């Protein structure tokens, strides 16, 4: 229950942050990405400000053996670069640059009843479904026996 409430509160903060920062506005995002044009630096401030609590939290995490309400930390540990990461980042970058929506702002805009956001999110979910269908591979025997931490 505590986990659900904190997840909901975190979502609340995130959704409000999308609107307050104006990241919800694709025109603002595209103006930030338009580095050779009339560059709008606002989103650099969003990123910088977001990193402050996030960096502090990751420092605190080092001193904690477990999170406040969950049994253990479940965070990515991989350090290698593989073709999936690199290709995925390129495809995401193209899609982000085409319209100016990334996943967070898109679902916030959807909540505000933006028709374009509904279409975008529907296509985004379809893209996720395609990934699931195309990229799902059976777990090799050796991996399947290992516990997933």
């Amino acid at each position: 229950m505590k986990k659900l409430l904190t997840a909901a509160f975190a979502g609340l903060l995130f959704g409000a942050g999308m609107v307050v920062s104006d990241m919800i506005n694709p025109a603002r995002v595209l103006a930030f990405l338009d580095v050779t044009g009339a560059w709008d630096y606002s989103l650099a401030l969003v990123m910088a400000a977001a990193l402050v609590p996030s960096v502090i939290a990751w420092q605190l995490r080092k001193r904690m053996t477990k999170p406040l309400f969950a049994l253990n930390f479940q965070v990515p540990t991989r350090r290698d670069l593989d073709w999936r990461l690199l290709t995925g980042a390129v495809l995401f970058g193209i899609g982000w640059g085409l319209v100016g929506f990334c996943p967070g702002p898109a679902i916030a805009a959807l909540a505000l009843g933006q028709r374009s956001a509904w279409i975008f999110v529907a296509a985004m979910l379809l893209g996720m479904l395609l990934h699931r269908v195309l990229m799902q591979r059976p777990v090799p025997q050796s991996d399947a026996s290992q516990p997933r931490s």
Partner: protein
Amino acid sequence: MQALDPLFPLLGGLLIGLSAALYLLANGRVAGISGLLASATGLSSELQSNAQVPPEPAPQLARAFILAIFVGALLAAWIKMPDIVVTHRLPLLIAAGLLVGFGTRLGSGCTSGHGVCGLARAAPRSVVATLIFMAVAALTVTLIRQFGWVL
């Protein structure tokens, strides 16, 4: 589009960062929206996971997070409705959505997971992914705006 008072991006960014900090310290997970959305909708590819990758966020937590984004956005918009200026060209919206959905799953994250969370802990995969998607997005906008590449 008018310039923003820097107060808003700073305050909004702070809220986003607090959200990530709370989710990490209380629930022990990375607040990455693409992963949460895939989990909430049952679209994450479970079988792809191996011991090195943490399991996808629990669907109930992910659903609570995503639904609360709706509420948070509505509350903030109730105080001040944001301008949302976005293309109405259907093929462009669909193509962009497909690329963002597929790309963020293949690359294991988006602006929040790799950007806000990954950069904060200097995770090499996230730093590289963030540099790539930022550069590619800027290049895409430049090709469209400066060189008139229209799709």
